[in-house]
């Protein structure tokens, strides 16, 4: 049964791990640790919601725990936060999945963590602040900076010869 579960969900969960870690070694560690947690806590799944969602939360939490010690997010003041230009993320919709992953992995660990948690997983800034031990303002500023970096990366990517990205 464990093997069946692994075969069914390992690719998806590995995608989550890669998105949070940005490198294969850390992603491998996260996948291994996450699946062990899943198998050890199978009895705790009460059938509320999808099994994949439950499993994904375990992997996201494992990733957060894994990187929380490594990543130091410094709280920023309101002034700094307000100075950051907001970026409309719809410009990324035209990108292929592969390019998106490359862009996200170019983010610094702190930006990537907040971006993944807020934009992809749908955590609120308060939840992120609680989980990462930072203020909501810091979470917001990290996200705004991450968007800015992504926009610049996208611009660079579109300027590369042979790129099919035109709609920026």
């Amino acid at each position, binding site marked *: 049964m464990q093997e069946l579960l692994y075969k069914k969900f390992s*690719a998806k969960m590995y995608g989550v791990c*890669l998105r949070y870690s940005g490198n294969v070694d850390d992603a491998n560690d996260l996948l*291994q640790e996450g699946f062990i947690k899943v198998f050890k806590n199978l009895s705790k799944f009460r059938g509320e919601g999808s099994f994949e969602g439950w499993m994904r939360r375990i992997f996201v939490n494992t990733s957060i725990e894994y990187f929380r010690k490594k990543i130091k997010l410094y709280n920023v003041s309101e002034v700094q936060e307000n100075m950051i230009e907001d970026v409309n993320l719809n410009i*990324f919709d035209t990108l292929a999945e592969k390019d998106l992953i490359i862009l996200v992995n170019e983010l610094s660990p702190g930006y990537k963590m907040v971006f993944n948690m807020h934009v992809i997983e749908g955590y609120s800034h308060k939840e992120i602040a609680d989980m990462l031990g930072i203020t909501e303002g810091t979470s917001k500023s990290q996200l705004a900076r991450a968007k800015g970096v992504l926009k610049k990366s996208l611009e660079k990517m579109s300027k590369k010869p042979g790129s099919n990205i035109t709609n920026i």
Partner: protein
Amino acid sequence: MQNFKDKLYNHEAEPPSEIWQNITAELDGGINKIASVKDFRRKPDLVFYGLTAAASFIFIFIASIFFDLSKTDVSTVSNSLHQSQNLLPKQVQDSLNLNNKILKEIINSTKDKNLLALNYEKSSRYGKKYLTIAGPECQPVKISPKVATLIESADNEYPPKPIWNKKIEKWKQIMLGSTLSPISTNLLDIVQASSSIDNNE
């Protein structure tokens, strides 16, 4: 068209094959651990009975010692009571006899008449380590020769040690001013009694 969020959310990648091997290896270890835990959960019956038996044995052992000691204590107390009942009149009689002798000596003595009691002659019984004097209530009191010298020095008729005189006088005043009840074995009470007897004479 799928937006970028869905693309990232549903992103999949094939993990290396060795990860499953690592997971199974770790799970096998975990299963063994879990199994050992289960074994331990089966054991509590045995452990519980074992501990209960050990506790009972220790309790019985301690209780037996306690009751044995209690018997010993009771027998010891009863024996000592019997002994004290047997010995007490003898001790009292001896003390009274000794006291009478001391008092006679004091009365007959010319040198030490100012002291309440000093029986140098009889102190050999105690190996010269102590002198026996009669207290204010005529009870025998053992004192060291040094204290006897002190008592002598306290007497104004023997003035070679004026420092002691002053000290003892000071102590006397303190003791007389004290609200505490004087006890018979108190040296200063004895000295005070000595002075009173002298005055009466």
